[in-house]
């Protein structure tokens, strides 16, 4: 079911195909009509909505400390990310803030997993291929109950279980990352193993849009499509920045969706801060067989704190007063 329209995904898909055959809508980037991204699965309707819908503050999710409204959970995670990076004195803040919503939706509303049994064989897996966003993953894992919240304050410290980049020493982390471009290949191997074992779990992979520069991503994209790995779901964090500038300034990546489509993937374009859109897109992935899935999620680097949005806090660390200001802003909204 589509969470936004309260309609079956199959029905949306039917409408999308009809509109496309009438040439009323076309492939492209959201959110403008005619030039709207049309996926084969009806995601266009999501794209017609405003880009940054307010979070569904009311939706309740289960965390280790009890039931929380989703909006509150997202705020809490963002605050923790800020505090962790400020405490550590280094870390990729902007890159972490841009994927908070996506990770939280996956871990609290989508993935099958059990924080009390991180090795549960039937669990869905997640590879944070853009490993420099580790603070977001750690905050989410701790909120889910994989390890005590106090450990967050030890980020990047000697002997901490929370390394600068994801490491399997952290409960809940399945694959080491940090060197960009390698996560999708590993996911392909895991997806092939799942098929061999006739297991039904999925492998979610979060890629950076700058990370798409790496050739290995496209090698793996070919392999995944060749083997029809419909148990892989890639989410591209399309925040339009990489280390030294905007993605289009550093390396032209557009048309991103067409690239994936040409490689044989099931492609969807959504806003990565729109909870309904993310949930709908994830559900579409479950209904489409025979091809791997990619959700190109438009996001804002540094999302959640006005003066951090864009590339300014890409790698810089907030000082005490900036931290205070940021925490207050998150509390206010």
């Amino acid at each position, binding site marked *: 079911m589509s969470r936004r329209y309260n309609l079956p995904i199959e029905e949306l898909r039917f409408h999308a195909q009809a509109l496309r055959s009438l040439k009323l809508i076309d492939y492209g980037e959201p959110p403008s009509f005619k030039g709207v991204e049309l996926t084969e699965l009806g995601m266009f309707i999501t794209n017609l909505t405003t880009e940054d819908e307010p979070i569904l503050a009311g939706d309740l999710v289960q965390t280790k400390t009890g039931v929380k409204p989703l909006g509150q959970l997202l705020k809490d995670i963002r605050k923790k990310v800020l505090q962790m990076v400020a405490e550590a004195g280094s*870390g990729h803040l902007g890159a972490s803030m841009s994927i908070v919503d996506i990770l939280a939706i996956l871990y609290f509303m989508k993935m099958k997993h059990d924080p009390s049994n991180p090795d549960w064989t039937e669990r869905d897996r997640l590879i944070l291929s853009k490993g420099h966003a580790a603070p977001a993953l750690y905050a989410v894992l701790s909120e889910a109950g994989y390890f005590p919240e106090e450990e967050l304050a030890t980020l*990047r410290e000697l002997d901490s279980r929370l390394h600068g980049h994801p490491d399997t020493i952290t409960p809940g982390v399945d694959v080491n990352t940090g060197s960009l471009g390698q996560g999708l290949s590993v996911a392909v191997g895991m997806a092939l193993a799942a098929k061999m074992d006739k297991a039904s779990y999925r492998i979610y992979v979060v890629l950076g849009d700058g990370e798409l520069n790496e050739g290995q991503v496209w090698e793996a994209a070919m392999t995944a499509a060749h083997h029809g790995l419909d148990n892989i779901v890639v989410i591209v964090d399309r925040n339009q920045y990489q280390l030294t500038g905007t993605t289009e300034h550093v*390396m032209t990546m557009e048309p991103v969706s067409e690239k994936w489509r040409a490689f044989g993937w099931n492609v969807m374009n959504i806003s990565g801060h729109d909870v309904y859109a993310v949930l709908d897109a994830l559900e579409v992935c479950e209904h489409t067989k025979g091809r791997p899935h990619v959700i190109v999620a438009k996001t804002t680097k540094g999302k959640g704190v006005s003066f951090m949005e864009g590339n300014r806090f890409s790698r810089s660390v907030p000082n005490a007063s900036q931290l205070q200001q940021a925490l207050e802003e998150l509390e206010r909204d």
Partner: protein
Amino acid sequence: MQFKAQVEYFGRALVEKGATDPDLVVLDADVSVSTKTGFFREAYPDRFIQVGISEQDLVGVASGLAVSGKTPVAAAFAIFIVGRAWEQVFNTVARQNLNVKIVGTHSGLSPSADGGSHQSIADIAAVRVIPYISVVVPADAPAAGCLTGEMIDRRGPVYLRLSRGATPTVYPDDVELRIGRAETIAEGSDVAVIAAGNMVHVALQAAESLRGDGVEAKVVDMHTVKPLDRSAVIESAKETGAVVTVEEHSVLGGLGGAVSEILSENYPTPLRRVGIMDRFGMSSRNYQRLLERYGLTPEAVAEAAKQVLEAKKK
């Protein structure tokens, strides 16, 4: 003691060289803010090439520029440029003896907070086994500036290995060093400490503490690990009869390996290697504490010196 950053001196040396060498071209894989090749981009935007986060492509494009008569300098983090593009360096750059300069910054444990994924502890070994290519590991920032110029003036492939942040200086800003010629920076006849990179400074501190214990240590800055200054190694062994190597790198295959190879065949001498004991790196907010954890300290070097002195007596 002053702290200066190798990458800053490297970045400035490129700009200086660019003024007189119109063929000098600098390539980046989306890390120029960190490698400081951004200085060159500011000065000569037309000779700065951005390839995005794609280290294999970086080395390949540099190769094409070299084939066409340019002098390309390709700089990125050591772990990624040497690691991911190793075979491009082997097959495309080195086998054709192309005039490509590979620069790996953030080497050793220097990206301390980033953790093991970013710490390059085997790059000297990995590059040293490739024919033709030189391996240069400056001791400090002034040496990095000087050896950047040397690297550009030398025809053929070179790997220059740099640290991330500010490190203690050993040399004055106007130091003159030659690729392939070791520099003796302290004289002594009891034991020879042969060091590279940041560890030259640590070796000097160790020599000082050894002097307090009545041991005279010779300290050699072996900034060129390949081609190794064989005569400097053999002479040091002959003069002292006891050798310690020190590097911010695995004890396998790096400077310690190179010195052991030469001495075991030419002048077997009691030897200890100080370096990373076949382990991966890890995160630490503080770089110095990480060096201590891995035993890359003056105390560890002095201890190794005492061990070789014992071995020499036997």
